[in-house]
């Protein structure tokens, strides 16, 4: 039996994985600050003494598509949208500093400022804690101002400044929790000139029409690869019947 079927099968598996990535992107078309995953397939040629005609297909999620999503105003004073390639530093569940574009902030009962994923937002020196009874305002540079409820006319006091990190020149990749980390470890420097849009949120950067096209393409490719398998089967069958005929005569 020909090894063609294994090559075709690797292609089918690849198409299925591709569909899965597309499905996951599609499902996250409304997740705040979501970055679409990009899958890339590479032919893996089997090296050996034989003819190098077998190139298995192998897919991998290379990186995330970092195109900005659409920013829309929400009117909520604790919603922020980052600009350019900047990302907000948050503390992951394992305690490390990770990066996200998700800026729907809220205050936990203990006064910790968290984003929509429930991760504490990092300030100048670790997670930001705010006075629980204060009204919060966020400045365009990420500074958090607290208005004392007992003296609303006083100048608001600066609590901390959200760490907005510059990703320029650093390689970042999405981890298993969907948060971005510096490849090889380490933390990003804070961008002192960073600006955020307050009372606005950045949507997911998944484009519905692009996703549709990708999906159809993956489906058709899968169909073609199935066809290859069936062709291999036909060839194999005709070969076997030839043998049978010669044996019978």
């Amino acid at each position, binding site marked *: 039996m020909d090894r063609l079927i294994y090559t075709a099968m690797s292609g089918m598996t690849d198409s*299925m994985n591709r569909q899965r990535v597309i*499905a996951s992107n*599609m499902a996250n078309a*409304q997740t705040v600050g979501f970055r679409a995953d990009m899958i890339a397939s590479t032919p893996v040629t089997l090296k050996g003494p034989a003819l190098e005609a077998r190139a298995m297909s192998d897919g991998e999620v290379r990186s995330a598509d970092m195109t900005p999503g659409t920013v829309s105003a929400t009117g909520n004073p604790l919603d922020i949208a980052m600009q350019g390639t900047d990302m907000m530093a948050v503390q992951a569940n394992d305690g490390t500093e990770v990066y996200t574009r998700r800026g*729907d902030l809220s205050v936990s*009962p203990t006064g910790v400022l968290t984003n929509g994923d429930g991760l504490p937002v990092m300030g100048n020196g670790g997670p930001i804690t705010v006075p629980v009874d204060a009204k919060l305002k966020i400045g365009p540079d990420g500074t958090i101002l607290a208005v004392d409820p007992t003296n609303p006319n006083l100048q608001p006091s600066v609590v901390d400044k959200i760490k907005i990190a510059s990703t320029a020149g650093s390689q970042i990749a999405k*981890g*298993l929790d969907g948060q971005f980390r510096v490849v090889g470890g380490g933390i990003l420097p804070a961008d002192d000139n960073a600006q955020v849009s307050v009372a606005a949120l950045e949507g997911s950067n998944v484009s519905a029409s692009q*996703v549709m096209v990708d*999906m159809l393409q993956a489906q058709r490719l899968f169909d073609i690869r199935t066809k290859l398998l069936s062709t291999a089967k036909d060839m194999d069958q005709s070969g076997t019947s030839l043998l049978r005929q010669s044996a019978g005569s």
Partner: protein
Amino acid sequence: MSASALQVARTGLDAQDTRMRVISNNLANVNTTAFKRDRANFATLTYQDMRVAGQQNTSQNNYATGLNLGTGVQIQGTSRQEEQGTLDTTGNAYDLAIQGDGYFQVLLPTGQFAYTRAGNFSLSSQGEIQTSDGYPIQPAITIPQGSTSVTIGSDGTVSAIPPAGGNAVQVGQITMATFPNAQGLQSIGGNMLQETTASGTAQIGTPGVQGVGTIKQGALETSNVNIVTELVDMIECQRAYEINSKMISSVDDMLKNANQTL
């Protein structure tokens, strides 16, 4: 399993379905006094590690990148959008609107407190100020029978002219509750909210003092649902649902094809 693209797309359908429910609840409450619209928050489900970056490919090579496949999306929760609704003048003496922060405190039949911004109050047969469901406001305020010209000041002072006539006298004081994290309050229906660990404990204050909102008599706070926004969200949600269902049929076609061809 290779069909997991189906499962991933299903999480998308589920999430859009839930979001549609939130939108329809917002729309249904477009005329509910002091209703605050909810926003559905989406969150990425955890990624599945198919191949770790740096894993050995052959004895000489390592994979430069990994294969981390997303497993879909979930609705993480809803958050109440606390923007002030517009004030609608009704002229009714017992209609109270809150301008700014705070909630009226009422006593439920269970003995627990509930909090509301819906100030469409009325008098009980005993002259007590109560909600339309008959829950008395706390601390209880009783208007003596036969009183005239009941006025409620912006600071919550309730005064009335006694049945015998003469000058208006103070008959009570409405206080309001504020919360460290008002978004953590739990909706229990009937325009009522209840305290939770997430909201923190109620802090009782006088209207107009220390950041507590003021009371406007003869007006009601309308719902802060904006019909146009909800309709746009609804269309967006519907389209997203359609694309996700398209994905299901696409993957189904792939499997069908494999089944029939092979």
